């Protein structure tokens, strides 16, 4: 039996559905087809914290986002760090790394402060993996105990993104991003299996879905 995975189709379709519902409820307050220049917007990903405390997977991570509106497009940079370690009776491992993304977003709303976007990213991750001790069980020949020294990796991937950034109070925004990620390359030992690429996910898979939930602060822009 394969490991139980979250229902990726559900993950993908629900936010898109809600996103469209949300957009329908928004009034289009201004006819302008260019984005107002309001200054750089800095974001902090709350879902990394929730992932650590709510799910059983103890991934320590931080992710930050910055975007800048330019006529018709938002230019986006995102960066994060992640540390995963587990110490079980039968094995121990640690993954540490950082990642970055650069991309653009197209706001589908005209006027107002809210943003409903579709966009793309180029992303990379640099990370390492090591296990000081693991036991591969075998009832017939006997258990095999070994270790894996530090292995370094670099990964590159592309993302299609969609989401919302809703203005909630003055210069504060809440927003989510849904991502479809496609891995282009992975350097390093390809046979290590399902290690986690920070910012991407399972290295044994070429594609993955992702979700972030940000709180943003927009630094006021003054001419």
């Amino acid at each position, binding site marked *: 039996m394969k*490991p139980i995975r*979250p229902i990726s189709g559900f993950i993908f379709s629900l936010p898109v559905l809600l996103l469209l519902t949300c957009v329908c409820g928004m009034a289009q307050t201004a006819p302008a087809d260019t984005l107002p220049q309001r200054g750089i917007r800095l974001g902090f990903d709350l*879902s990394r914290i*929730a992932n650590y405390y709510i799910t059983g997977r103890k991934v320590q991570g931080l992710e930050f986002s910055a975007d800048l509106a330019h006529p018709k497009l938002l230019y986006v940079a995102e960066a994060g760090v992640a540390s995963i370690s587990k110490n079980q009776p039968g094995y121990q*491992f640690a993954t540490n790394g950082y990642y970055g993304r650069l991309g653009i977003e197209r706001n589908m709303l005209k006027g107002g402060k809210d943003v409903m976007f579709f966009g793309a990213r180029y992303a990379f991750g640099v990370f390492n993996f090591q296990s000081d001790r693991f036991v591969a069980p075998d009832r017939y*020949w006997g258990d095999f105990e070994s270790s894996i020294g530090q292995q370094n990796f670099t990964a590159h991937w592309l993302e299609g993104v969609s989401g*919302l950034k*809703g203005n909630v109070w003055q210069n504060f925004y809440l927003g989510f991003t849904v991502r479809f990620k496609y891995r282009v390359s992975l350097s390093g030992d390809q046979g290590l299996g399902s290690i986690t690429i920070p910012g991407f996910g399972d290295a044994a898979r070429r594609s993955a879905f992702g979700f972030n939930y940000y709180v943003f602060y927009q630094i006021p822009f003054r001419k």
Partner: protein
Amino acid sequence: MKIPCCKYLLIPALLLLTVSCAEEDCTNLDDPLLTIEFKTRSTTAAGQQRERDTSLVVRHVYGVGMSPQDSLVRPGTYRNLILPVNQRTDTTSFRILYYPAGDTSRTVRTGTISLRYRRQSFFVSDVCGFNVRFNDLDTIRVVMPPNQSLVIFKNTVDEANTPNIRIYF
């Protein structure tokens, strides 16, 4: 206008976090196991070679170096054998006591297959830990009765558990 938007922003976050709590289950995870198939070769009237599955009555199988009393399979008729490879060394030998299905004499024969390979540890998942797969599988010694032959069909023993070796009778 902002309130509905905020409400909709929160709903997917909560639902997604709930969905992401699903844990993996390792109880039935596939271990890399060696699969040996049994085949016969025949020539058709048109002169073409044809392969067919065949069965062996297996009395006993054990790993050389382990107790000969402990069989890896129950006595019975098999079209293939699925055996554990020794992950502590770079070679494994199996001794098989059998007779072909349909052999009325029921004379037990013995075959020994010695294999070498390159071991590779791999990480299964956070929950399941590590396992070992075996690459570059090759034979170093095969002792079988005459008119039997062995072919490495797939030289990687991995979680896919597809046939690795074919023995022709």
